[in-house]
């Protein structure tokens, strides 16, 4: 195993972490690593220092003893990917709609547009104030190569301002790269009452910007000493003026060409700078987008993929998938050997019965082909936009990372080069989000936020071996060959520092366990933490890890008493999920928890 030095480094770094506000990243030398997916790409030695890329040296460069050396000869170093439009970790508060004197509509009508019915309108909101991604989600993203995301507010006509965040596992103040990247808009508004329709949202949008302009004029006149009516205290209107002044772009959610054109029209009406997020059918208006230099954040939110009726069915009874090259996605294929009488055969039999059943309706071949054609137009959207010269990046939108990754692979199977995608996901995204100092490139002086991949990121079994975020490494062990899922957990080492989260049930309980494993595979650990602000005394224990389940007993302080807890947790996808049970002074105690392993290198 080539990555053992990192594990050792983690153990050595831990004691020092407790004495500083911030643990400094280790200096690293990654030797013999390729910086492109091409197998013939030149190899280099990357030197990391202070969280930045100190130098990119030739392969034969010999780093000094200060560097921890990591053998990169089987790895590919690529800039971290950026989710340019995401929601994960963002829990937004309910919008405060009534910000003026509401009318009792049961006995009168308000003829005027209300001054501050703010349904759908909250441009002053900063998503940075509400972003808090959990450790598991963060790890999933790091494993996928995504080390940063635009945390985008959503769900309102003017949803607020997005933050560019780094998935470094730090506190929010350390994770936020830019708390105000752009504004966000959609043709939606939460809650009851006016407005409730697309045309109502338009009217609300228009009146808001008219009011913002009017309020600005009043403020300017008053500042100039004119005796004018005092402008109301209204942070949203103040934000609105910044859009009118072109200080902040507005990323507008739109999947259909119709909605995209609507946003363009509104932007023209008020002189706004816009981008488009979603963009499913943007190819239909590629000309306008290119001409106006409107960037598009594609979420690849396609409709369900219909079978290709012109492809032979695979052994599972489904059609073979894949694109022009006909390469089938490994995810869709059966992984194990198939035997006579196995389930796929039964499915096939069912299919035959269905096809021959005169009482079962199946759509005509021509219709199946048409559905497939329409779906392929969506699939090839990114290609068409790029051909037209539209700036394209990718985001998860309201979907999860898995969907984005799956559909990115589909793009590579259907005409988009892997290198092109890598550039879009890193450099192009960083540029669009104004973060080229911290993201998007592997070059001297730039932040050491990159990934070491085992293969081309869009190859079937590619994985991130090590994710560096600002120079701090998180290691992802290689799954055991031939075993997947739960079985793989059996042989995995649990050594390391684990943070236990008890969720809403016990929000004030924070526990850290440190597990070590000696040569005889004996697992020992310590249990420390705080409960309701009080320090828990450090306890030691011995543990077992069998069939993917960790078990141990430990004493713990519980509201002034010492209680023996029996802990049992299963390891799945790198996380422990289980509970600590015991008999407390006031009755039985059950502490359900999930635990994630801290990155090595000493994240703060």
């Amino acid at each position: 195993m080539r990555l053992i030095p990192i594990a050792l480094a983690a153990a050595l770094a831990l004691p020092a972490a407790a004495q500083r506000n911030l643990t400094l990243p280790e200096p690293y030398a990654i030797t013999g690593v390729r910086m492109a997916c091409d197998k013939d790409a030149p190899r280099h030695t990357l030197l990391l220092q202070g969280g930045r890329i100190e130098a990119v040296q030739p392969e034969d460069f010999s780093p000094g003893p200060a560097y921890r050396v990591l053998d990169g000869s089987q790895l590919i170093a690529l800039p971290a990917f950026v989710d340019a439009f995401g929601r994960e970790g963002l829990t937004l508060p309910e919008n405060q709609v009534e910000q003026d004197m509401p009318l009792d509509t049961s006995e009168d009508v308000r003829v005027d547009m209300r001054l501050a019915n703010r349904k759908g309108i909250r441009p002053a909101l900063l998503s940075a104030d509400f972003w808090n991604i959990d450790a598991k989600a963060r790890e999933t993203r790091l494993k996928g190569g995504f080390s940063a995301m635009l945390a985008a507010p959503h769900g309102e006509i003017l949803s607020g301002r997005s933050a560019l965040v780094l998935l470094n596992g730090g506190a929010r103040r350390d994770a936020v790269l830019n708390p105000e990247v752009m504004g966000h808009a959609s043709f939606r508004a939460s809650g009851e009452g006016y407005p409730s329709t697309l045309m109502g949202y338009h009217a609300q949008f228009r009146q808001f910007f008219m009011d913002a302009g009017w309020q600005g004029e009043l403020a300017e006149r008053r500042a100039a000493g004119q005796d004018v009516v005092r402008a109301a205290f209204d942070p949203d209107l103040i934000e609105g003026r910044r859009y009118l002044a072109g200080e902040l772009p507005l990323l507008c959610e739109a999947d259909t060409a119709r909605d995209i054109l609507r946003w363009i029209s509104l932007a023209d009406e008020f002189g706004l700078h816009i981008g488009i997020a979603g963009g499913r059918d943007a190819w239909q208006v590629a000309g306008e987008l290119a001409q106006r230099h409107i960037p598009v954040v594609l979420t690849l939110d396609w409709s369900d993929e219909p079978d290709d009726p012109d492809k032979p069915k695979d052994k599972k009874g489904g059609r073979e998938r894949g694109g022009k090259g006909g390469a089938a996605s490994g995810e869709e294929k059966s992984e194990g050997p198939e035997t006579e009488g196995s389930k796929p055969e039964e499915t096939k039999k069912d299919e035959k019965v269905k096809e021959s059943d005169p009482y079962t309706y199946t759509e005509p071949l021509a219709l199946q082909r048409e559905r497939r054609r329409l779906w392929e137009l969506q699939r090839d959207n990114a290609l068409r936009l790029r051909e037209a010269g539209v700036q394209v990046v990718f985001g998860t939108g309201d979907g999860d990372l898995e969907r984005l990754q799956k559909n990115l692979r589909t793009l590579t199977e259907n005409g988009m080069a892997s290198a092109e995608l890598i550039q879009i996901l890193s450099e192009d995204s960083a540029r669009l989000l104004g973060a080229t100092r911290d993201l998007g490139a592997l070059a001297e002086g730039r932040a050491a936020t990159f990934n070491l991949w085992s293969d081309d990121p869009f190859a079937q079994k590619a994985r991130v071996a090590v994710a560096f975020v600002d120079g701090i490494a998180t290691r992802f062990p290689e799954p055991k060959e031939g075993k997947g899922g739960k079985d793989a957990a059996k042989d995995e080492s649990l050594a390391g520092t684990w943070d236990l989260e008890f969720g809403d049930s016990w929000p004030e309980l924070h526990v850290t366990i440190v597990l070590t494993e000696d040569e005889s595979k004996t697992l020992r650990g310590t249990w420390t933490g705080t409960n309701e602000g009080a320090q828990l005394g450090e306890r030691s224990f011995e543990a077992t890890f069998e069939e993917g389940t960790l078990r141990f007993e430990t004493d713990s302080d519980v509201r002034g008493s010492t209680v023996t807890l029996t802990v049992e947790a299963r390891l799945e996808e790198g996380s422990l999920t289980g509970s600590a049970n015991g008999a407390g002074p006031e009755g039985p105690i059950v502490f359900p928890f999930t635990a994630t392993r801290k990155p090595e290198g000493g994240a703060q």
Partner: protein
Amino acid sequence: MIRLPLLACLLPALAIAQTEHPIETDATREPSFQVGKACVIDNVTIHTATRPAFDGSVYVMGGKIVGVGGYDGPMPADANRIDGRGYHLVPGVVDNHSHTAIERGINEGTLSITAEVRIADEVDPDDINLYRALAGGVTTIRQLHGSANTIGGQDEVLKLRWGTLRRASDLVFPNAPQGIKFALGENVKQSNGFRRSERFPATRMGVEAVLQRAFTRTREYQAEWKAYHAAVARGEDPAPPRKDLRLETLSGVLDGSILVHSHCYRSDEILMLIRTAQQFGIQIATLQHVLEGYKVAWEMAQAGVGGSTFSDWWSYKVEAYDAIPQNADMMMRAGVLTSINSDSDEMMRRLYQEASKSLRYANMDPVRALAMVTLYSAQQLGIGDRVGSIEVGKDADLVLLNADPMSGFARVEWTMVDGQIEFARVDAFGLDTNPAQPTPRTLDMPPARELHAGPAVRFTGGTVHTMAGEPIENCDLVVQDGRIAAVGTQIDLAPGLDTTQWTTIDARGKHLWPGMIAMNSSLGLYEIGSVRATLDADEIGDNQADLRVTPAIHADSAHIPVARWTGITRAQVVPGGRGPALGQSAVIDLAGDTWEELLTLDRDMLHLRMPNVPNREIKEGGGPGGPGGPFGRRGNRDRDPEKAWKDLADLLEEARHYGRRVHAAEDGTAAAPPFDPRLAALVPFALGERPVAMHAGNAATILRALKFAKESEVKGVLYGAEEAWKVIPAIAESGVPVVFGPLWSLPGSEFDPYDSIYSTPALLARAGIPFAILNGDPENERNLPFHAGSAVTFGLPAEEAARAVTLYPAQILGLEDQLGALLPGLRADIVVTDGHLLDTAAHVEHVFIDGTRVPHDDNRHTRLARRYEERLQRLLER
């Protein structure tokens, strides 16, 4: 020269496998020809909408009409020439009231005043209904806000086009005057919801107050801005008032730059709006719906207010109960600029036919009738100088029809907008090349009955459509003792027969038909759609097999004489509800004072709502059988169709078991089971002894119903079956008859050919499947003949279509020995018309039921018309 008809067959329909059927895509919608910058339509019958039709040529250049009848100016040498011989050229329809192609909210109904919202922000150029509208000859629509609030949003006028990459901006009618939707009455005061509204107003007096408050405040707003502008003009630098989108719009209404089009029904609210508008100096452009316009037509004319109404919709709510189909004509004769609109994606496709109803009900001049859906409608929108008629200088928005636009049988061959072909008919089903054939002879002519000196009615010299074979011209028909006694060109009377008690009706130039039988009807069970107290069709519960409709039939329902007015003499009255077992229907005649007097056949069928099976897992929306489809109201998606089908099969098996136990008890071989009325009612149907109506809409459900009928051995009849066209071979093989309809339904999927439902009767006929046509509209059963007429338009021979509402229903009901034909011995249900029975413009002149002449034109509508005609004449004579 472009040859007509310009048709193409997508797939040969007869040689295909069960689920291979034609589809429609953007590729097939691409017009098969274009005319370039200039064209001449030669030798065509031209209906200009300004004068009577004449034959000639129409010249088009640069998107404009440059010559009508003749043209001396320059035409490009390569101008296309279209031979229009045998065809009719008409102006494109201008639909004054549409909600088509509006996405994500027709009503911003959250407030009582939302003048600031604009339909222009919601235009959906991808709405397939735009293409279907073009296929119905519509070239311009006005998209309106809904009617949920007193002052709704601003409208948008579109020129219809259909390309591959569609843009809303390409559809906008340039420089059309801006309009705004107002609304009055039940919708505004939210009368028909389940709970009382919390939004003011809740009464008609409140509606007036909203208008008063709105425009009083608007005057204040105008004054604020006037003062501001005056100060600026004086050289001062005041701070501007707040600009308010809503008040800006209302200011436009006050200064006349925004035209008011108001939804309304009752005469009281019509007058209220006229007077309120006059108080504020507002000129109302049109009153929409305006179903009681005929009551105050004189006042409308005096106020210069237009009226845009439905041809015959009524009774869907209380304020529509006084609607009459003479409304448009009466308003027009009072001097009101009048149009007919659709307010419906479905009806929009056949507005020529809707206009022609005024010929039937009010003897309107055909030029004026056509103008109601073209020129007058355009004039109401303020674009009458650019579209709406075939006149030199106007936009070349032209439609080629294969028959007279007022016949009710006219089919659109192509539609041109601004000189470009936007729709060209595709004969997806190959009906032009392989048409359905009329059945040459369905019945033998029985011998005449013995005539006697008692009372009789003798029709002389008419064209008798016996339904047995070809119509017999110059034919006599004698009715005696409630039966048809003799039919023939030469009826021999016994020498010396005293005929002094006989009545003779001169039928020369007239047509005699069997009375129509309305299948799947709600007559007598349904009065006013929004008033639950007047509805008795839909029972609650799953298994109500023992219910019968008969004692719930209200013999005094206003719908019965209204239906009789178009020649319907019998109806199969059908229960609705959730099902699957809905109850048992009955056949009634339409003349009697009690349900017992009406009854022809009780418990004629059991009605089952077949559990809905989706055609595919991903639902496509409101197709037949889908949530929004014609049968969706009754046939909602079953969450677990397989379980629902099993439950239904189990229910029938349980009934058979119950029947066996009862039979054994009667034989004395076993004890009787506990009495279960619902199982007992099911027994004869479960044993296949009596017919079962299987209500099924989409293709998958139809197939499943056929399987059910085969496996359960029930004597099934398919009802509804809007997607029968997808599974014709399977239906043909099953031998199950189909009661098909309503024809006036939208195809369920965007991939279904636009004419798939219209063409289905012809496809059924071509495949030899026994079928009848139903209407299915509880508020307008009288439209049954026109539904059948639409089948004629799309390939069903006219005599077959007539049989589909007379003879064939009788056969499906097992009443062919009594009804459905004009043959000696049958009950004398006779309708006399001055044209084809199914022609919208034809008039019914006599109706006989069981040999007795019934007042065919004495009904709620004719009585209201007579009353207000007197008022109108009195006022006009002032």
